[in-house]
C-alpha cells in the first residue's frame, strides 16, 4: 500500500471529496436562486464532529452516545472565552484552539475513571454524560446564561479582514481549510503507532494486551482526541450562529446524527465520514430547505398540508436511509480499508 510507504497529505478519496466541497460556491455563482455555501458550512461542522466520533466508534470500537456533550462543551468554552460579556475575549482563533483543548481535557476527565467499563456500560455512561452536561449548562445560569445562550460571538477574523454573514464564501473556505487540516491530522493518526494500537484494541483486546499495549491508555487518548474534535466542531458552530444557542441544542439527537453520519458514510473510513456528513447533513440543511423554498417560490406548497413541505420529510428520510444502508451496504457508503478486504 503506497499510502503506508510514502508520505502523502491526503488519500485519493479524501482529495476527491474535499475538492468537490471546494467547488460548492461555484454552484452559487452560476445557478441563480441557489445558495449552498452558507448552509454547507454546517455540513463541515458536522463532518468535524463525526470525524471525532469516528476515532472512538470506528477505530477504537467503543460505542459513544454522548458526543454532543463535547460539542456543547466546545461551544460554551468558545462562548465564554470570546464573548464581550466575559472578561477573556481571546478572539476567534484562540477561542477555537482553547475550546479544543478544554474538550480534550473534559474527554480525558470523563474517560479516566470510566473507560475500563466494557461495551454497553460505557455506552450508558456516555449517554448519561450527554444529559448531565446539558442540565449543568442549563442550571449554571450565573456562568452560562442558562437557556438564553451566550451571544454575540465573533466571526472568524484575519488581520484586517472580518468574515460577515453577507459574504459566506470566505467563511466557507476557511471552514473547509480547517476541515482539511483535521482530515490530515486524523489520517496521520490512522497510520501511526497509536492508530494501530486502537485498531488492535478494537479487534482483540486481550491479544493487544499480550503485545504490551495498554488498552486503557490507548482508549483514553482516542477518547480525548475525539472529544477535542467534537469541541472544535462546537466552537465553529457557535461562531457560525454567533451564539451558543440554548443547551438543549446539544441533545441526544445530535449524538445520534453524528453516529448516523459515521455509520451511513462508512464506519472507520475518513472519506466515508466526509461523504456521510454531506449526505446526512446536506439532506437536512441544504437539499430539503432548498426544495421547500423552490416550492414556495412557485406557490405549490400549502400551509394547510404538512406533507407538501419537503422539510418535514427529514426524519422519514433519515430512517429510510438507515434501514436501506443496513440492508444493502452495512459497511457504509465508502468501505473502510479494513472492511473492503472482507
Amino acid at each position, binding site marked *: *500500500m503506497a499510502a*503506508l*510507504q510514502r*508520505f502523502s497529505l491526503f488519500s485519493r478519496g479524501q482529495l476527491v471529496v474535499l475538492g468537490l466541497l471546494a467547488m460548492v460556491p461555484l454552484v452559487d455563482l452560476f445557478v441563480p436562486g441557489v445558495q449552498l455555501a452558507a448552509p454547507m458550512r454546517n455540513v463541515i461542522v458536522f463532518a468535524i464532529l463525526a470525524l471525532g466520533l469516528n476515532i472512538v466508534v470506528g477505530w477504537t470500537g467503543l460505542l459513544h452516545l454522548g458526543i454532543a456533550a463535547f460539542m456543547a462543551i466546545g461551544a460554551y468554552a468558545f462562548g465564554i472565552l470570546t464573548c*464581550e*460579556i*466575559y*472578561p477573556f475575549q481571546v478572539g476567534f482563533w484562540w477561542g477555537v484552539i482553547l475550546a479544543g483543548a478544554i474538550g480534550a481535557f473534559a474527554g480525558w476527565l470523563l474517560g479516566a*475513571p470510566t473507560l*475500563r467499563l466494557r461495551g454497553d456500560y460505557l455506552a450508558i455512561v456516555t449517554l448519561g454524560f450527554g444529559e448531565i452536561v446539558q442540565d449543568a449548562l442549563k442550571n*449554571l445560569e*450565573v*456562568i452560562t446564561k442558562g437557556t438564553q445562550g451566550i451571544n454575540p460571538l465573533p466571526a472568524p477574523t484575519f488581520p484586517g479582514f472580518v468574515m460577515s454573514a453577507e459574504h459566506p464564501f470566505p467563511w466557507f473556505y476557511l471552514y473547509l481549510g480547517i476541515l482539511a487540516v483535521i482530515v*490530515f*491530522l486524523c489520517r*496521520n*493518526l490512522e*497510520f*501511526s*503507532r*497509536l*492508530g*494501530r*494500537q486502537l*485498531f*488492535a484494541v478494537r*479487534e*482483540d483486546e*486481550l*491479544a*493487544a*494486551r*499480550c*503485545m*504490551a*499495549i*495498554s*488498552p*486503557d491508555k490507548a482508549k483514553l*487518548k482516542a477518547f480525548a*482526541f475525539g472529544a477535542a474534535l467534537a469541541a472544535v466542531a462546537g466552537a465553529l458552530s457557535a461562531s457560525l450562529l454567533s451564539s451558543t444557542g440554548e443547551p438543549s441544542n446539544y441533545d441526544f439527537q445530535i449524538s445520534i446524527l453524528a453516529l448516523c453520519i459515521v455509520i451511513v458514510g462508512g464506519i472507520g473510513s475518513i472519506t466515508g465520514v466526509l461523504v456521510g456528513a454531506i449526505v446526512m447533513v446536506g439532506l437536512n440543511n441544504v437539499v430539503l430547505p432548498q426544495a421547500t423554498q423552490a416550492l414556495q417560490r412557485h406557490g405549490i406548497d400549502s400551509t394547510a398540508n404538512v406533507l407538501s413541505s419537503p422539510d418535514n420529510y427529514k426524519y422519514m428520510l433519515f430512517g429510510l436511509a438507515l434501514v436501506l444502508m443496513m440492508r444493502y451496504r452495512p459497511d457504509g457508503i465508502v468501505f473502510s480499508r*479494513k*472492511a473492503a*478486504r*472482507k
Partner: protein
Amino acid sequence: MTTDVKSLISVEKVTMRFGGLTAVKDVSVNVAQGSITAVIGPNGAGKTTLFNAITGVYEPTEGTVLVSGRDPSRQLTHAVIAGAAATGVATAVFLAILVRVEALWKASVIDLYVYQQAFPWGKAIAAFFATLFGGGFVGTWLPMLLGLVLGASGRMVIWSRTRRTPDVVASAGVARTFQNIRLFPDLSLVENVTVGMDRRLSSGMVAAVFALPSALRERMTARTEAMKLLEFVGLADKAEEAAGNLPYGHQRRLEIARALASRPDVILLDEPAAGMNPTEAVDLMRLIKAIRDAGTTVVLIEHHMRVVMGISDRINVLQYGEKIAEGTPIEIKNDPRCIEAYLGKEELG
C-alpha cells in the same frame, strides 16, 4: 538440572484455583535461557492455564513467576505513590471548585468585570483563591478531603488491579501465541506484525498526529522490519492481505511473527502445530529451531509428539494440574509414569 544456565522463566510452586476447581497445583517449571522447553500433557492437564498464569492473563492463586529472576509486576515505587498523591490533590481542587463553581465565578468574574473595561486579573486571581479556601469546613475542606481520598485511593486501586496485567508482563519481554489463534483479523499481515513491535516503538500521539519527522521515520523503519519478519516466517508475499483471510497454518506462522516482533527474551507457543499436516509440522520445527538459534528462548505446549520429541531440550509433563515428570526427550520417552499417563504405546511405536 540446568543450574549452570541462567533460568529465564522460573515458575515457582504456582497454583491456580477457579472456585473449587484446582487447574494447576503446585507446579514449578524452569526455563533455561536459550533452550526449547516443552510442556506436554493430556487435554485438561492445565498447560494453557499455566501459560495464562505466566503471561498475566490470570493472577496465580499461589506461587510466583519470575522473569529473568525478577518479578515483572509493577512495584510500589515512589513514582506510583507520587502519582497517587498528585491525582488526590488534583481531585481535591477539582471537587472544591465544582461544589462552589457559581460562587467562585461570581466573586472572581462577575463582581470584578465591568463591561468593556480592563479586567483586573490580579484581583480576580486573588478573589478566586480567597473564595476557594474561604468556604469553611463544608464549602472547602470537606470536598477537598473527599477529593483527596477519592483520587488517591482510586489511583491506588487501579495500580493494584493492573500490577500484573498481560501488557506489563509482555513489556518485560515475554511474548506468546494463543491456542485458538488471536490475530487482528481485519488488519493486514504487516500491520499485525507492526502491532507486535509496539513495545519497541516510542513515537507519541503529538508527533504522530502532526506527522513530525521522527514519527514518520519510525513508521518507515517499523514497516521495513515487519516485512523482514514476514520473510522469516515465509509470508512476505501476502503482506497486504487481511490476516483473517489466511489459511490456518499461515495464521499460526503470522502469530509467531507477531510475537517475535517485540524481540522478546522468551516466546510462549501454545500448540503451534495444531491442525497442521506433517509437512507443515516439519516446516514449523525448522522455524522454531531458527527462532531459538536467533537467541530467543522458546517454551511450547504441543500435542504433536514428533515436534515435541524432535526439538525440545527439556520436557515438562503435566497431568491433572500436577507436574509428574521433567527431563530430556529420551528420559520422558522411557519414563513409565509418562507412558502410562499420556504417551501410550502406539504413540511411541
